[in-house]
C-alpha cells in the first residue's frame, strides 16, 4: 500500500538525526532540512514523509504536539524521545556497516 520512499529506507534515520539536532520542527521544515543539508541531492517524498512520521510516533521514537507559531498558524511539531535516540544510534551504526560493506565490494571487485 505504502509507496517505497525515494530515500531507500533511510528516511527514518534522516528524520531522527535532524530532529535530534534540531528539535521542534514541523513536517515541512523536516523536509526542507533534508533537502538543504544534503546539498539539494536528497528529496524526501512529501507523500511518504507523513506516514513515516506517524509510524515513528506510534513506535514512540518521536513525540508530537500542536503549537501556534508566531505567524498565528497551528503546526504539529516533533521531537525525539529517549527511545528514538536509541533507535537513531542503532540505525546509524547499521548505516555505517552497510556503507563500508558496499565500499568493500566496490573496491575489491
Amino acid at each position, binding site marked *: *500500500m505504502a509507496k517505497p520512499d525515494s530515500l531507500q529506507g533511510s528516511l527514518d534515520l534522516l528524520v531522527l538525526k535532524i530532529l535530534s539536532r534540531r528539535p521542534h520542527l*514541523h513536517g*515541512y521544515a523536516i523536509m526542507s532540512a533534508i533537502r538543504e543539508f544534503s546539498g539539494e541531492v536528497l528529496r524526501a517524498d512529501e*507523500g511518504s514523509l*507523513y506516514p513515516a512520521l*506517524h509510524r515513528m510516533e506510534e513506535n*514512540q521514537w518521536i513525540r508530537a504536539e500542536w503549537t501556534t507559531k508566531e505567524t498565528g*498558524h497551528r*503546526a504539529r511539531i516533533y521531537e525525539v524521545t529517549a527511545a528514538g535516540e536509541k533507535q537513531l544510534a542503532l540505525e546509524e551504526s547499521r548505516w555505517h556497516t552497510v556503507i563500508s560493506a558496499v565500499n568493500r565490494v566496490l573496491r575489491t571487485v
Partner: protein
Amino acid sequence: MSLWSRISNVFRTERLHRDIDEELQSHIAEALREGRDPEEARRAFGSVLSHRESSRDVRLLPWLDSLCADAVFGWRQLLKRKVTSAAAILSLALAIGSCSAAFRLMDALLWRPLPVAAPERLYAISRELAGREGKDSTSDRCAYPMFRQMRRAVKDQADLIAVSTSGRIDITYGSDEETEKAYQQYVSGWIFQSFGIRAAVGRLLTENDDLTPRAHPYAVLSFEYWTRRFGADPAVVGRTFRAGNEFYQIVGVAEGPFTGTEPGIVTDIFVPTMMMKNNAIVRSDYEWFRTFVHLKPGVPLALVQEKLRPPFRAFLEERAAASAGVPEQEKNAYLNQALVLNSAAAGVSGLQQGYGKALLVLGVLVLLVLLISCANVANLMTAQAMARHREMALRVAIGAGRGRLVQLVVMECLWLALFAAVFGACFASWAAPVVAGMISTPDNPVRLILPADWRVVGFGAALALTCTLLFGLYPAFRASAVKPAFALRGGSAQLRPRMMQMLIASQVAFCVLVLFGAGLFLVTSERLTHQQTGFSQERLLTVETVTSQPQPYMVWNQVAAQLRTVPGVEAVALCEWPLMTGGVWDGLISVNKAPPSPVASYFLRVDPGWRKLMHIPLLAGRDFREDDFLSGAAVVNQAFARQYFGGRDPVGNSFDVVAVEGLRVPYRIVGLIGNTRYRDMREAMQPAAYFPFSGNYGRASFILRTSSQNPMTMATALRLAVQRARAGFRVSNLRTQTALVEQHLVRERLLSLLALFFGLVALVLAGVGLYGVLDYSVIQRRRELGIRIAIGAHSVDIAQCVIQDVFRAVAGGALLGLALGIISARFVEALLFEVKPTDLGALAPPAIIISAVALFAALPAIIRAVRIDPMAMLRSD
C-alpha cells in the same frame, strides 16, 4: 501502550481524520509561504486522500477498523431481516443453552476436580469380581481390617483415607422436638491434613481422633453448612448435637468449598470413622466405606498398586479360610477378585454411577440438536448471501478481496452467535438447576454445585465460536466466490443443489437419531412404570419411626393401635422398612442342610396384618399369627418357592438362613404369598422370605391404608399422633408408597422427558429448515417451472419436480439416522428396559414422523410452485 492507542484510535476515527487533514493542510500552507507555486506545491504533495489513508493506517489497526465497519454493517443486515434473524437466534440459543446446561451438569457431576490439594493424585480403590454368567461386578466398598492392613503397607507412599457414604440422618441440637436432617459422613481423621484443608474456626479432626473405637465423639462442620445453618457463628465450636444415641461435640469448621467426596451430595458434618456403630471397625464382613488413595508427590501409581496387593490378597485368603459352607465356586471367585485403582479427581458418588451415562446420552442429544440448528442457520445464511450476490459482486469489482467478503459474512454470523450465546447462557442458568432438581427424590435431595465460573463461560464462548464457524464459513466462502462480471451482467448465482441436499440429509439423519433415542427412552419409561409391583400402593402411607431406645413389639403395636384411631386411617401394619425404600437385608438359603444356594434371598420382618394391608395374595398355608413370635415361622413368596423348592408348594418345609461365618438360623415355612418388588423396578421378581416382627427395634415403619386420595394431607396429624402415643417416638420419614415406587423411575422419566423435548425441538428445526430450502428452490426455479406449466405439465408433475430431489435427501437421511441409531443404541443398552433398538416398533415411528413433517414442510412450496402463472412470469422476465 502503542497497540492500545491504535485500538482506541479505531473508535475515534473522526478526530484522527481531522488531525491528519489539518497537518497536511499546514504543510501546503507552509510551502505556499515559502513562495512556491500553489499548483506545483499541490502536485508535488500528491493526493491528500491517499496520504490520509496511509497515515491513518499506521495510526490505527486497519483490520480492527474494517472489522468494526463490518460489524456495523452486519448489525444493519440483521435488523433488516428481523424475523429470520430472530428465528435463527432463537433456535441457536435453545441449542447452545441446552448444550451449556448439559455441560454444567456433566462438569459438576463427572469432571470438576474436588477442591482438595492435588486432586490428580487422588484415586479410589475398587474390587472387580468375575461374577456369575460372565457378568463382572465391581464393588468399591471396603472392610476396616483390610483398610488397616493396606494403610500400613503404603504408609510412606500414600495416604489411605476411609470415607463412608454420606448419610441423611436425624440430629438434634436441643430437645428431641427439634429434630433436623443433616448429611453426615464418617471419615478418617487425617483426611483434612491429607487434602490440605485448614480450619475456619476451631480445629479439624486429626489422626488421634480416629485411633480408638468410640473414644472421640467429635464433629467438624463443612463451611457451607456452617454458614447456612449457623450464619457463620464462631460460637458453634464446643456445641454438641445428638445423632441417634450418640452425642457429638463440634470441634471446628473446615475452610473452603470442600463438602465431601461425593458430587451430588453436600456433606454437612464429618465425624471420625471410629464412631461408626455395629463393631464396624473390627468386622471383616462389613464393607461400609470407600477407600481413597492420595499419592504422595512423585510416587508412581503402579508402585502403590503393587504394594497394596499383598495385604489385599492376605485379607481375602484369611476370610475365605474362615467362611465354612460357602460353595467352592463362590470361594474361588471371591479369591480371584482384582484390586483396581481408579482416578477419583472428580470424587466418587452413586449419582455418578446412576446418572453419568444418562447425562452423556443427554449431552449427545443436545449436541445433535445443536448440529441441526447450525445446519439450519447455514442454509439460511447461504440463501441470504446468494440473494446478495449482486452486492457482493459490486464489492469485488471495486477491489474488495476474498478475505474481506468472508469477514463480512462471518461478522454477520458472529452477531447471531453472540445473541444466541447470551440468550443460551440465560437458558442454561435456568435449566441446569431445574434438571438437577428433577433427579432429586424427597429421600435423597441432590445438591449439585453449579457455579458459573470460567469453565462454564469458556465452554459457552467456545461453543458460540465453533457454531459461527460451523454455520458461517460455508455461506461466507460461497458468497466470496462470486464472479463479478457474471453477476453484474445479470446472471444469478445458483446454490449448489448437492450441498443443500447434503445439509438436508444430515439434518434429517440427526433428527431421526434424536427421535429414535427419545422413542427408546419413552418406551423404557413406559414399561418400567407399568411393571407390576405385586402390591397395591393406592392410598398407602409409610411412616418410618425411630425411638431413642429399642422397643419391644408390644410397644410398637400400641403405637399402631393409637394410629388406627386417627380419622382417615383404615388399617395399620408394622414392618422393619417399607418396600422400595432401598433398605435391604438379604442372605443365602440352605434347604435340607445342603450347601447354600448361590442365589440370595431378600428378608423382611413384618407383623401379622402386613400382607393383608399390602393386598398381597395368600396362595397357600396361612398368614402369621400373633403367637408366631419365637417359633421361627416364615412366609415366602412364589419366586422363593421356585428358586429353592423347584416350584413345589413349600408350606411345611424348613430352610436355613446362612450367615457369612457359616452360622445357620432355621425357619419353618407356614405360608406362600405372591411376588412383590423389594428394591428395584428393573430386576426380575426376587425370592423373598418374611419373618415375624419380633425383638427389640430402635426403628420400624408403620404402613397405613388411608381413606384419603391424597394421604400426605394427614402428615401433621400422624406425626403428632406418633409423638403423643409414646414418649421418645419420632417420625423420621413420612412418604406415600407411590413416591417410594416412583423414585426408582426418576432417571427414566427424566431421560424420556428431556429426550422427548429435544426430539420435538429437533423436529421443529428440521421442519423449518426443509421449508426454507424448498421455498428458496422454488423461487430459484420459477422460470423453469413456469415454462413447464406453459407447455402443459400437470400439477402433479410440478409437485414431483419440486420435491423429488429433496425427498431423496430426506429418505437418505432417515435411513442414515436409523442406521446410526441402531449402532449407537448399543451404548445405551444399560439405560433401556424391555425394548430392543431393532424392533419395528422402535424403528418405524421416527421414520413416519420425519416423513410426515417433511411433507408438511413441503406443502407451501408445492402450492407456490403449482400456482406460478407462466404468462405473468414470462412477461416480467
